[in-house]
């Protein structure tokens, strides 16, 4: 049964599977982040130190040249350095006090670097790289800029991209694995729920299926199965007791009925006594009928009629039943409305007629309004039989119990009629036919629906 997803996202997160499916990749991503972030920071600091050390080293060299040979010496040294190491990592610029370039591998004073402060600078260039270095003001007012293009920015960009990609990959992989796992678990739980549902519907022989793994779910299912075994045993015992009582009570009841009958027929009896005896006899007959129905039900449930099922024309049986009950319904001012498609099912003619008899009588007794009787064919070739009245609704809580022995939906509803065996018998017969039965609130009225297997396979096992 699909539950209403009323709360939307909230309801979605209520499922432990969904929460797990989200939490797992999130946790993995967090752990990975916690591990790699310090490494990242350390690597960054290391690169920065390296660059600064390289710059300091360059400055020390250039300083020596300047001391020895003045500005010309500095120029030569710069020139030489640019020539022997043409890599673009090292940056030099010697400029006059107005900022015009005198020597070096920069054509002009870089934007964003102050030419009037002797200080470390750190600027981003147009092509995205970072320039890091130091500015010196020489005695003649010339400015010397020594720097390096730092790989830090590139490293950061690179690392960030990689981290994002791996985070996405982790989430994706964890999501797929988690989703797969959840789906599998979900399916198993859904199957268990469906099987439990069948048991709840009254198919007491149904058990929860186990997987080959013998995991915790199997252990739980096994636990439930043994509980169901016990319930089935108790229900069987109860059924057996009722059949045993019915069986054992029949003989004394028959003797009682016969004795009443004899007394009734004796010539001396006065009319008043005779009428009383007749009433007594009718009541005894009613009891005997109830017991007979109970015994029939026990036999049908025991599967005694399996071999007798053969292909029968359901539509014809329904027509016969309508034919039989039409006058009775008409005498109550009610009608039987047939809506019949041709259908052939595997079954027993008399028992299927008894199903209709019970359903129609039930609708006549407890329902109100016209009674719709329908036969539809199902895609698998089987048939659906529906009997529906337009009377008062049966309480939703009572619907699943409608087919239990001795169940009465409402104690105030003409309790004198019937003992509550009729619908139990209907279910017994439907299930002995391999069919299923269901009662629904037809708003208004009660609708009983029986699904029966197709009769095309003809006579079985005969």
């Amino acid at each position, binding site marked *: 049964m699909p539950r209403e997803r009323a709360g939307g996202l909230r309801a979605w997160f209520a499922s432990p599977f969904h929460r797990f499916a989200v939490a797992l990749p999130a946790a993995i991503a967090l752990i990975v982040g916690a591990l790699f972030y310090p490494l990242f920071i350390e690597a960054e600091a290391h690169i920065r130190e390296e660059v600064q050390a390289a710059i300091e080293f360059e400055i020390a060299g250039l300083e020596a040249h300047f001391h020895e040979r003045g500005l010309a010496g500095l120029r030569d040294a710069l020139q030489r350095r640019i020539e022997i190491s043409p890599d673009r990592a090292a940056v030099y610029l010697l400029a006059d006090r107005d900022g015009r370039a005198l020597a070096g591998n920069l054509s002009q004073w870089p934007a964003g670097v102050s030419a009037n402060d002797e200080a470390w600078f750190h600027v981003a260039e147009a092509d995205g790289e970072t320039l890091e270095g130091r500015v010196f003001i020489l005695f003649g007012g010339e400015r010397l800029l020594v720097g390096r293009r730092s790989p830090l920015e590139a490293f950061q960009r690179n690392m960030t991209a990689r981290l994002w990609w791996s985070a996405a990959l982790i989430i994706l992989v964890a999501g797929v694995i988690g989703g797969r796992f959840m789906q599998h678990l979900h399916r198993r739980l859904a199957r268990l729920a469906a099987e439990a549902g069948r048991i709840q519907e009254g198919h007491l022989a149904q058990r929860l299926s186990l997987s080959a793994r013998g995991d915790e779910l199997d252990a739980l299912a096994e636990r439930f199965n043994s509980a169901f075994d016990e319930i089935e045993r108790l229900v069987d015992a109860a059924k057996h007791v009722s059949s045993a009582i019915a069986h054992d009570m*029949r003989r004394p*009841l*028959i*003797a009682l*009925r*016969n004795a009443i*009958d*004899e007394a*009734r*027929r004796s010539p001396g009896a006065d009319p008043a006594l005779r009428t009383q005896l*007749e009433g007594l*006899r009718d009541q005894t*007959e009613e009891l*005997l*009928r109830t017991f*007979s129905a109970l*015994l*029939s039900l026990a*036999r049908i449930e025991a599967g*005694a*009629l399996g*071999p*007798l099922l053969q292909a029968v024309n359901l539509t014809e049986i329904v027509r*016969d039943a309508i*034919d*039989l*009950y039409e*006058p*009775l319904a*008409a*005498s109550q001012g009610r009608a039987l409305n047939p809506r019949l498609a041709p259908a052939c099912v595997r079954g*027993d*003619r*008399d*028992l299927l*007629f*008894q199903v209709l*008899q019970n359903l129609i*009588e039930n609708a006549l007794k407890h329902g109100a309004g016209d009674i719709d009787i329908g036969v539809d064919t199902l895609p698998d070739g089987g048939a659906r039989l529906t009997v529906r009245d337009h009377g008062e609704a049966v309480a939703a809580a009572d619907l699943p119990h409608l087919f239990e022995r001795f169940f009465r939906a409402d104690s105030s509803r003409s309790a004198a009629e019937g003992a509550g065996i009729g619908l139990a018998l209907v279910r017994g017969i439907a299930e002995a036919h391999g069919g299923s039965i269901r009662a629904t609130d037809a708003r208004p009225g009660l609708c009983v629906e029986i699904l029966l297997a197709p009769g095309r396979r003809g006579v079985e096992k005969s």
Partner: protein
Amino acid sequence: MKILLVEDDAQQAGYIRKGLQEAGHTVDVAADGRDGLFLATTASFDAIVLDRMLPRVDGLTVLRTLRASRIATPVVVLSALGEVDDRVAGLRAGSDDYLVKPFALSELLARLDALQRRGNGRAEAEQTRLQTADLEMDLLRRSVSRGATRIELKPKEFRLLEFLLRHSGQVVTRSMLLEAVWDYHFDPQTNVIDVHISNLRAKIDLPGLPPLIHTVRGAGYRLGGDAA
């Protein structure tokens, strides 16, 4: 009628015997299958009432043996449980009718009468007209009239009346009618047959004429001109 009752339950046998005797029949009782078979083969009876569950030789074996020795006496089989398989087995073994315990004595009597009538009627030519008092049915033209008045009947009413006419003067039970007219076998528990009969009665027993369809309390119906 001379009837053989094969029943092992003494209490039940006594009750049935008494009932049958009160109805004017002569009854011999056998308490087990072997005695029953012996009596049935050595003496002549108009009908046999045979319990299915019997000590020594069971009811269906008795029945098969009888039929195998070409004894065609009508047999009503009594069974503790009226399940489909029992009924089919009983009819296959050659029984003429089948009754489920507990049955009403009136039901057994009515069925024995019907068997008797069927047995007698076998020799007669197939009838085309049925008549009781001033009620007439023409089976070929499928018409019914009472005196000079033509009566229009629905198909099921026609078959109901035909069955009553074929058993006129006899008591016919509700389950006999259900079996004969609708061909389903069980005890109708409500007044569903009564409604059919009262509809039929409304058409047959016209005002001012003596009623023909009588209700027999605790048993069923009887068609006949006399009020008894």
